[in-house]
């Protein structure tokens, strides 16, 4: 049994008195290209409070993974943060030297990826890698670090943690590897956990186990979580609030119940209606025509306009701003107050 598992987690109302753990302000990221820097992320802002889970949702190419890598300072070599701030507590991580950043990672912010095998070192045992992590951040003895690693493996629901401590990553199944990865990420009790599609490669019964584990560990440690996913079912399951991203911008932000019940951006609405629900029928699934535009072919004005059913001339004339929406969140659509979107109902 996973620790502290709760079969029907009541919807937690986010307490605005909880401290803000992560504040991303006007973040912009660009990739170097022969024609100069090319914008990948444009003016992204959000914050996450202690114990809260913020979902970053969108299709491939929407910029959700780049955003999460920018937060933890792990962007590829040719991709750079060109503007904005990433604040953890009072510290702005943008422009922080790599040496200092290395101290932040693991201690303040940790990350789990879709494929844990690529982020675990195949040449060291799981236990050694976790113990190493403890010793890198805290003044503990070898023995103390080892005990912590075993304790974390146990908390992460790995059977016989004493024994599995000595096993190499390849001997773990996909689900067990993800548990080990989560154990390692939470070892130093980071304030923020970034989870990038952590269950996408897993079978659905194992996914349910991992989501339950993340939820219970989050409750135990009060971790803030940035959860990157394309799966709206997973969003409904684990997120408190959601940022929907499209073509490098946040197009809608709202709490999770409102987002599904009352989407205010046509892209959110399209995503919700594309998800197959219910029985076999002759009615067609709603689709969003076309694909996300590549970074070098961004349309002028609203980036979603070429695929939008509701686009009018004004949409391509000026870029819409992220403004307060009728549902109490934010939406980037100049027609949001005249449209009545129905979402998945």
């Amino acid at each position, binding site marked *: 049994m996973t620790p502290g598992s709760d079969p029907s987690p009541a919807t937690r109302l986010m307490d605005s008195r909880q401290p803000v753990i992560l504040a991303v302000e006007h973040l912009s990221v660009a990739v170097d290209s022969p024609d100069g820097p090319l914008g990948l992320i444009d003016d992204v802002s959000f914050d996450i409070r202690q114990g809260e889970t913020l979902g970053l949702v969108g299709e491939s190419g929407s910029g959700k993974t780049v955003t999460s890598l920018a937060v933890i300072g792990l962007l590829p070599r040719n991709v750079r943060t060109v503007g904005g701030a990433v604040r953890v507590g009072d510290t702005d991580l943008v422009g922080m030297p790599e040496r200092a950043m290395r101290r932040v990672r693991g201690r303040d912010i940790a990350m789990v990826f879709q494929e844990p095998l690529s982020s675990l070192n195949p040449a060291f045992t799981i236990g050694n890698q976790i113990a190493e992590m403890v010793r890198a951040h805290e003044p503990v003895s070898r023995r103390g670090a080892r005990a912590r690693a075993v304790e974390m493996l146990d908390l992460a629901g790995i059977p016989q943690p004493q024994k599995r401590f000595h096993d190499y990553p390849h001997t773990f199944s996909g689900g067990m590897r993800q548990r080990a990865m989560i154990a390692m990420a939470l070892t130093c009790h980071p304030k923020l956990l970034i989870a990038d599609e952590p269950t996408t490669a897993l079978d659905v019964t194992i996914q349910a186990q991992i989501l339950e584990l993340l939820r219970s560990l989050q409750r135990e440690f009060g971790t803030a979580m940035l959860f990157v996913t394309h799966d709206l079912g997973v969003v409904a399951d684990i997120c408190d609030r959601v940022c929907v991203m499209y073509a490098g911008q946040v197009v809608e932000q709202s709490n999770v119940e409102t987002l599904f019940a009352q989407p205010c951006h046509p892209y959110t609405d399209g995503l919700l209606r594309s998800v197959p629900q219910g*029985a076999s029928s002759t009615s067609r699934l709603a689709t969003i025509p076309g694909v996300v535009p590549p970074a070098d072919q961004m349309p002028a004005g609203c980036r979603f306009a070429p695929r939008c059913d509701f686009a009018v001339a004004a949409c391509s004339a000026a870029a819409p701003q992220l403004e307060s929406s009728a549902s109490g969140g934010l939406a980037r659509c100049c027609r949001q107050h005249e449209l009545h979107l129905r979402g998945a109902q």
Partner: protein
Amino acid sequence: MTLAQPSHDDTIVEHVPTPLLDVVGLSKSFPVRRGVLRRVVANVRAVDGVDLKIAPGETLGLVGESGSGKSTTGRLVLRLIEPDRGIVRLAGTDITALDRNALRAARADMQMIFQDPLASLDPSATILDSVAEPLSVHLHMSGAARTERVLDLLEQVGLTSRHLYRLPAELSGGQRQRVSIARALALNPKVLVLDEPVSALDVSTQAQVVNLLSDLQREHGMSYLFIAHDLAVVRRVSQHIAVMYLGRIVESGPAEVIYTNPRHPYTQALLSATPIPNPVLQRERTRIILRGEVPSPADPPPGCHFHTRCPYVMEVCRVVNPPRTETPDGSSVVCHLHVSSASSSAAVENTARD
């Protein structure tokens, strides 16, 4: 078109049509070899006595997790892998008994679509070449007539002449999957085996491809064996469902019966584990979270394969493989919970005698 149309609506079918595809007792083991002498140390029973029936124009959804044997079943049905035992009848012909030439001819009637078209399409061949290949090989078409047919096929899947001379890498994931569908359609097959055809696609693209597959099925009257792990997609496209676990079918029947009244504890857990895209409903649900993981198919547990993870496990489950029981709703379930006590104890006696 002589084939029956899919019974999407609620018209009552008077008599059960002869299945277009009828699979009986399909089995396949793979040897596990170890050491310098490559000695066989174990046998993985990937597929263990699978029965499937698909009516003309209908879709059977085959669901299960990794290692359940669903993809191997798809390949066995097409004889891309030789089965150890079992019969695969396509329109009455047992294709497991065909020789090489006859099999090649029969393959025109059955095509397969894979999850990753980038892996199944030749990266150096243009879209024209890829779609034209089956036309040259099977129908000996060439020149303008062949190009015209390729264009016709591309139009059917929503592509145009602009795509003819592109390479697979120049297309988006959704477009590539459309190309592999066009290629599969080239020979007017009766059956398509679709192995996770939309799993690699984004949700909006996935919806486009699901719609396309439904349209093509309606137009051409094809039968689909739709293999996937995503239960929401499978429910959307299938009239019948079969659920696999460790090489065996544990439950099968009409899609709505399986989804609304699942009998097998594994089917129940699988449905319960699939998150509903509705935060209010999702948070109020009672969830069944299975403990443990799927055991290794090289060393499956005795008795019912699911007993190591089953919340309702009984003594008999650890010993005896449960028989198949028909339910009043027209589904069938392979589970001791649903066996009448008389036949269950008979099964125990039979095993004791063996």
